[in-house]
C-alpha cells in the first residue's frame, strides 16, 4: 500500500495552518500518532504525512472547529465507538440508512427497540456496499455476521474490511492495523474499506441529524 506522502512544510503551506495549530491538534488527538511518519532527509529528520488522509482531515477540522470544541472533535475522529444508542423511531426518522437496508437488517437479526453504535455501523457499512452494487444481499448477510462476531476484537484500532472473490466464491475479511495483504492470481478484490473512516462518517451523520 504505497501512499503519497506530504512533508510538514508543504502541508502547512497548502492548508494555511500554523505549527502551533498542528501541534495542538496532535495533542488533542485530532491527528493520529501513526500519521506522523519520520524519515531522514538531507536536512536531517523530517516529518511526513499520508497526503490524502491528512488533507481531508484538516479540511474537516477547519470546517467544524467553529461549531464544536476540540474535545468533541477528538471523540468524533477517534476510532472508538461512540456511546450512542438510538431508538428505532429515532433511527428511521434520521434517515441514516435506507429503508431497504433497515428492513433487511431486521429480517436477519430480528426486531429490536434500540440500536447500539456497533449495530448502526453494521447497517451503515452494509448500506454503503449495497449501494455500490458490488455486493449482493446474500453476501450482505455474511458481512453482518463477520462484523458482529469479530469487530469487537479489533475496535479502537485501525482496520480494513476486505471482500475478495475467486471463481464464484466470496470471502469477507477484517484485517487489523492496515497491514499488507497479497493474494494469489485470479483473486479479485471487490471491496477494500477503511473502517475508521466509516466510523467517522457515521458519527458525523448521527451528530448532524
Amino acid at each position, binding site marked *: 500500500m504505497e501512499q503519497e506522502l506530504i512533508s510538514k512544510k508543504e502541508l502547512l503551506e497548502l492548508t494555511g495552518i500554523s505549527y*502551533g495549530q498542528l501541534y495542538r491538534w*496532535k495533542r488533542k488527538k485530532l491527528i493520529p500518532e501513526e500519521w506522523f511518519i519520520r524519515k531522514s532527509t538531507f536536512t*536531517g529528520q523530517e516529518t511526513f504525512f499520508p497526503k490524502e488522509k491528512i488533507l481531508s482531515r484538516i479540511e474537516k477540522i477547519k470546517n467544524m472547529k467553529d461549531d464544536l470544541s476540540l474535545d468533541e472533535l477528538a471523540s468524533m475522529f477517534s476510532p472508538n465507538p461512540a456511546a450512542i444508542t438510538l431508538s428505532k423511531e429515532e433511527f428511521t426518522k434520521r434517515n441514516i440508512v435506507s429503508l431497504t437496508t433497515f428492513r433487511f437488517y431486521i429480517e436477519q437479526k430480528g426486531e429490536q427497540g434500540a440500536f447500539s453504535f456497533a449495530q448502526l455501523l453494521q447497517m451503515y457499512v452494509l448500506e454503503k456496499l449495497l449501494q455500490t452494487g458490488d455486493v449482493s444481499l446474500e453476501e450482505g448477510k455474511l458481512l453482518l455476521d463477520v462484523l458482529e462476531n469479530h469487530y469487537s476484537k479489533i475496535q479502537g484500532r485501525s482496520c480494513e474490511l476486505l471482500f475478495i472473490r475467486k471463481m464464484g466464491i466470496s470471502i469477507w475479511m477484517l484485517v487489523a492495523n492496515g497491514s499488507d495483504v497479497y493474494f494469489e492470481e485470479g483473486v479479485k478484490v471487490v471491496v477494500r474499506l477503511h473502517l475508521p473512516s466509516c466510523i467517522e462518517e457515521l458519527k458525523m451523520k448521527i451528530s448532524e441529524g
Partner: protein
Amino acid sequence: MERPDLVIAGVGNASGGVYNLVKIAGHGKLHGDIDCIDFNIQGNATIHGNVKAKVTNISGRAHMIGTLRSEQIKIQGNASIHGDIECKEIRFHGRGDVKGNVMAEEVCIHGETEIVGDCAAEVFDASGSFTIGGLLNAGNIHIKLFGNCRAKEIGGEKIEVKQQGMTFFKKLFLHVGLTAESIEGDEIYVEHTKAKVVRGNQVIIGPGCDIELVEYKDAFQCDKGAKVGSYKKI
C-alpha cells in the same frame, strides 16, 4: 463501595485493590493495580501495577512498574515510573524518571527530570534541568534555563526559553543551555539554545544561540551574540 485505608508504617507488603488512602511511610511493596483517592508515599515504595489516584504525593522514594493516572501529582523525592503518566497537573520538585510518555494539562519542572517518551501538555513550565527523549508538545512552553535541558523535538504555540541571572562561578563550572533537533512554533523566543532547525511565524533568536537554519513566516530578529547558519522567509 466502601473504600478502606491502606497504611504501611513499618515494613510491609500489600496487594492492590480499591482504597481511600494509600500511605507508605516505611518500606512497602504493593502488588497489583491500585485505585485510590489519596496516594501518599513518604518512605520507600515499590509498586508492581498501575495506579489510579486523585491526588498523588511522592516525597520519599518510589519505584513504579506500571502507569500512573492521577489528577494531581507532586513529586518531591525520587520517583521512577516505568509506564506512562496521565494527569491534569504534575509538579516535579525532586528527581523524576519516566520511561513512558507524560500527558498532562500542566507540567511544572523544578528538579531534575527525565522523560524517555513524549511529553504533551497545555502549559509546560520548567526551571530545572530536563531531558525529553521524544517530542515536547505544549501550547505554552516556558523554560528558564538553570541547567542542561534537552529535548529531541519541541513543538507548540508559544515557546520562550530564557536564561536567568547566573553568578560568575556557576557560569564557569556549569553548562547551561537547551539542546534540541528542531523547534517549531508560532511565536518563538530562544536564548542559549543549540538547534538544527527553528521554524515559526515570529522567531527571535537571543544571545548565546547556535542555530543551523531558521525558517520564518512573518518576522525574524537575531541577537548579535547568536550564531545562525542561514535563515529564510517562507
